[in-house]
C-alpha cells in the first residue's frame, strides 16, 4: 500500500494531538478520499475541514488531485491577510508556536504555490558562544494563545506592506533548545526575489521579536538568567501598519 505522511497545522493539530502521522492509502487515492480517511481516524476534524488547504510536497492540491506514494501532505487553514484580503488571496499563512523540531524544508514547501519563484527564509539558532560567554541551552516559554494571535498579526502586517508576498511562515519553537538548534523560522514566498520577499522575511523576524510574547532563559556554566527584550509595545501596536506610500 502506498504510504504518505500528513502534517497538521494550527487548530487541526490541536484536534489530532499529533503534528504528523504516517498513513497507508489505497493506490489511486485522491485528496478528497484522503480527507475522508482522516475523518474516520479523527471524527472531530469535521468542523475544521471547512476552507482547509491541502498541499502535496510543494504545491497546493485540489480535492480531485491524486496522492502519490511517499507524498508529504500538509493540511492547514489559510489565514486571510489584512482587513481587505481578496478572496482570491488564498496563499497559505502558517503561524505556530510549537515544541516540535522545525522541519525547515517542509515549512518552506508548505508555502510554495504554483506561482512562487522565490522563498526567502530566516532561521534563528541558539548561539553557543557570545564573546567569552558560553551558552549550554536556552529555555523558551510562551504565552501561547496571545503569541499565536500576535504571529497572525505579524503575518497580516506583512501582507499589508508587501502585497506581492504569497505564502508566509512564522513559527516559534519553545522548550529546552540546545546550542546550534533552530529556534524560529520566518519565511516569505513571492513570484520573484525582488517582490519584497527579503524585506518581508526580515520584517517578520524583527516584528516577532517586538510583539510576540515569548521569552528565553539562558543557561550556561555561570547559571541561568532571563533575557529581556527592549521594546515596550503599547495599544498602538494593535493597529496593523498602514501600507507605505511607496511600495518597496
Amino acid at each position, binding site marked *: 500500500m502506498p504510504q504518505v505522511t500528513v502534517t497538521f497545522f494550527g487548530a487541526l493539530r490541536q484536534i489530532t494531538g499529533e503534528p504528523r502521522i504516517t498513513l497507508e492509502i489505497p493506490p489511486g487515492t485522491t485528496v478528497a478520499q484522503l480527507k475522508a480517511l482522516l475523518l474516520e481516524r479523527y471524527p472531530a476534524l469535521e468542523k475544521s475541514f471547512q476552507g482547509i488547504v491541502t498541499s502535496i510536497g510543494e504545491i497546493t492540491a485540489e480535492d480531485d488531485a491524486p496522492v502519490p506514494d511517499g507524498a508529504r501532505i500538509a493540511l492547514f487553514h489559510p489565514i486571510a491577510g489584512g482587513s481587505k484580503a481578496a478572496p482570491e488571496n488564498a496563499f497559505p499563512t502558517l503561524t505556530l508556536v510549537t515544541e516540535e523540531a522545525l522541519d525547515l524544508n517542509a515549512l518552506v514547501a508548505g508555502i510554495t504555490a504554483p506561482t512562487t519563484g522565490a522563498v526567502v527564509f530566516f532561521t534563528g539558532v541558539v548561539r553557543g558562544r557570545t564573546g567569552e560567554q558560553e551558552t549550554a541551552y536556552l529555555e*523558551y516559554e510562551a504565552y501561547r494563545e496571545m503569541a499565536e494571535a500576535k504571529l497572525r498579526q505579524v503575518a497580516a502586517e506583512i501582507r499589508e506592506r508587501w502585497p506581492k508576498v504569497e505564502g508566509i511562515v512564522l513559527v516559534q519553537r519553545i522548550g529546552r533548545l540546545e546550542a546550534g538548534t533552530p529556534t524560529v523560522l520566518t519565511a516569505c514566498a513571492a513570484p520573484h526575489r525582488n517582490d519584497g520577499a527579503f524585506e518581508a522575511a526580515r520584517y517578520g523576524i524583527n516584528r516577532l521579536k517586538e510583539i*510576540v*510574547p*515569548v*521569552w528565553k532563559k539562558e543557561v550556561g556554566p555561570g547559571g541561568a538568567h*532571563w533575557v529581556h*527584550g527592549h521594546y515596550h509595545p503599547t*495599544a498602538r501596536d494593535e493597529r496593523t501598519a498602514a501600507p507605505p506610500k511607496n511600495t518597496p
Partner: protein
Amino acid sequence: MPAYRVLLFATLRDLAKQEALTLTLAPNATVGQLREALAAIPALQPYAESAVIAVNHAFTTDDTPLTPDDEIAAFPPVSGG
C-alpha cells in the same frame, strides 16, 4: 471591591513564585492602577514599571480600562526569536 486575576510570565512568574495573582482593585480600574498594585508587591517592584500588561491578548496603555472578566497578563518585554 472587584478582584482581577493576572497571569504572570518569565521573570515576573519566577519572582512571584506563582503563575497568577489575584489583585483587588477599585471598580473601573485601569492598567495604570494595576501596575501600581504590582509595584506594591515587594518581589515584583523592580519590574512593575517596565512590565508589559496585556488585556485579552492585546497591548494596552496605562489608561486602558479593566473589567474583572478580562484575561490580564503581566510580563517583561519579550525576548523570543
